[in-house]
């Protein structure tokens, strides 16, 4: 019985391949130029697919990302991201620990922008608990968020530059970032995996002199951003590498669910800080940079302008700081009511959200993360189609992914 099945399967397979070969031959015959019509021209002008592995180990994948490429010479026909190399089971870990214990795990998702991940987590739980965060805590949270946005965009700028051959903006950007990390270290004790927010507010108050030194530092930042712009923005080589690369229209962005600078560079003026204000963003005066083109150069400009706006926001918040409480009234054991909530904020990469399902105990029943890098990475095949292999590096950089967030 099984032999019959096997032989039938083999026959089917053989028939299928014969069918395919015939279809390919006829398609090839239709494609080959009628001028020469010889066998040589037939193979010379045909699309010759080669499958290439832009492997998990590569200096430009910003982490462990594997992209399976189908190329014809240098043109990319298909680019499929293969992620999961950095999966650590974060969402399962959330379920096995209490709410406050989950905050250090959010640091390690988007390790370049830890404060915003912490913030989104805290907002989700605070919404469930219906705790109000005191004003001083709100202002300091916004300052930390914007500093983190500055730091994340500096990393993006440096690594994007170095992928395309401009080696110096990397060092300048990291010099500034070093100072920002020093501020973080002074505030919460760590530079990268901050753990700087607690449910209801903040763990500590600011150290004496922190605000003055921050004001001094932040006043210098626009001049430094001018430096980076002088190196890159008008540079003809930079423009040649980025203008027209990876164009995506506004409708497509909305369809794919892309958020963050990608969306804003395609013309959709959507920023959660403006559209759904949280903390105290509704009283702050800042511009949401938007461009119309949707290519890599526009995304570059949008992020650089966002850096400038972050400087403005921090200065405004510093001016508004007043002494007060830094943590709202939170019970000792956090047991939210059995409800679901989705809370999201604008991280440097896009919209980061936490969908929290609580069952009344002190551990969440389900804590799902909406990671912006993961959702934005989906657009890579769409962006890369038709471009050259050398552009792939620019495209991965412009989507600005962090593998910790993609894989969790």
């Amino acid at each position: 019985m099984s032999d019959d099945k096997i032989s039938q399967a083999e026959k089917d397979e053989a028939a299928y391949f014969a069918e395919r070969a015939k279809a390919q031959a006829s398609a090839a015959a239709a494609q080959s130029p009628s001028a020469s019509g010889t066998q040589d021209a037939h193979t010379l002008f045909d699309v010759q697919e080669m499958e290439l592995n832009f492997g998990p180990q590569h200096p430009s994948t910003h982490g462990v990302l594997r992209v399976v490429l189908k190329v014809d010479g240098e043109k990319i026909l298909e680019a499929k991201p293969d992620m999961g190399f950095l999966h650590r089971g974060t969402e399962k870990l959330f379920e096995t620990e209490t709410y406050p214990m989950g905050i250090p795990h959010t640091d390690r998702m988007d390790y370049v922008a830890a404060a915003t991940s912490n913030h989104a987590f805290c907002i989700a739980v605070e919404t469930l608990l219906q705790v109000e965060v005191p004003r001083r805590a709100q202002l300091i949270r916004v300052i930390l968020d914007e500093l983190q946005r500055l730091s994340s965009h500096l990393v993006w700028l440096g690594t994007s530059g170095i992928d395309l051959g401009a080696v110096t903006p990397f060092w300048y950007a990291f010099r500034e970032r070093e100072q920002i990390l020093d501020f973080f270290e002074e505030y919460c004790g760590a530079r990268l995996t901050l753990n700087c927010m607690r449910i209801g507010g903040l763990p500590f108050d600011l150290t004496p002199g922190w605000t003055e030194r921050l004001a001094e530092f932040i006043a210098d930042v626009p001049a430094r951003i001018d430096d980076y712009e002088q190196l890159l923005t008008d540079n003809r080589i930079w423009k040649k590498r980025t203008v027209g690369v990876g164009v995506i229209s506004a409708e497509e962005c909305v369809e794919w669910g892309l958020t963050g600078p990608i969306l804003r560079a395609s013309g959709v003026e959507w920023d959660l800080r403006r559209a759904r204000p949280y903390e105290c963003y509704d009283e702050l005066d800042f511009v949401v940079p938007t461009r119309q083109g949707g290519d890599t150069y526009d995304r570059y400009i949008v992020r650089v302008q966002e850096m400038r706006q972050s400087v403005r926001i921090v200065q405004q918040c510093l001016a508004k700081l007043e002494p007060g409480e830094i943590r709202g009234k939170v019970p000792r054991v956090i047991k939210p009511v059995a409800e679901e909530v989705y809370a999201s904020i604008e991280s440097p990469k896009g919209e980061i959200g936490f969908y929290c399902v609580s069952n009344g105990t002190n551990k969440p029943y389900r804590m799902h993360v909406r990671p912006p890098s993961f959702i934005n990475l989906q657009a890579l095949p769409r962006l890369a189609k038709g471009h050259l292999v050398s552009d792939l590096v620019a495209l991965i950089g412009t989507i600005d992914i962090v593998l910790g967030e993609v894989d969790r």
Partner: protein
Amino acid sequence: MALKKWLDKLTLLDLFDGLSVTGRHLFKKKVTIEYPEQKKLPSDRFRGMFRLDEERCIKCTLCAIECPINIIYIDWHNEKNEAGKNEKVLDRFDVDLKRCMFCQLCEEACPTVPKSIWLTTKTYEMAAYDRNESLYLDIRKLTDWREAPNVKPFTVVERG
């Protein structure tokens, strides 16, 4: 407008601007800190290597409960002390340094004042050659790790 763009393009203004930025930085102050001759002093809240004070510890195991990775192993038993009252005695207080992420939740959970376990020792130089012997800390090493061969208390060397 086209003329102006053509002017820029022809005189390579953008390239000269880029060159001037790097040229200026040639003479600016360099930010390298030449480790190990020069070191940055960690801040007061810096979450580094932790220390335990056995005397202050009341063996409430709140730190072990609060640890997100469950790497604190505490064992204690009751003993009668001189006054005849029951007293907890620590058998084992081990911390698995291989997996600690220095998140400070254990310190936050500790109810004693001052804290019995603290991370603000400003020490981060804990590299070791042998994984198991030095990285799994037991109570002797936690109370005073100056005896441990690889953990160096931090000393600041002034920036030159």
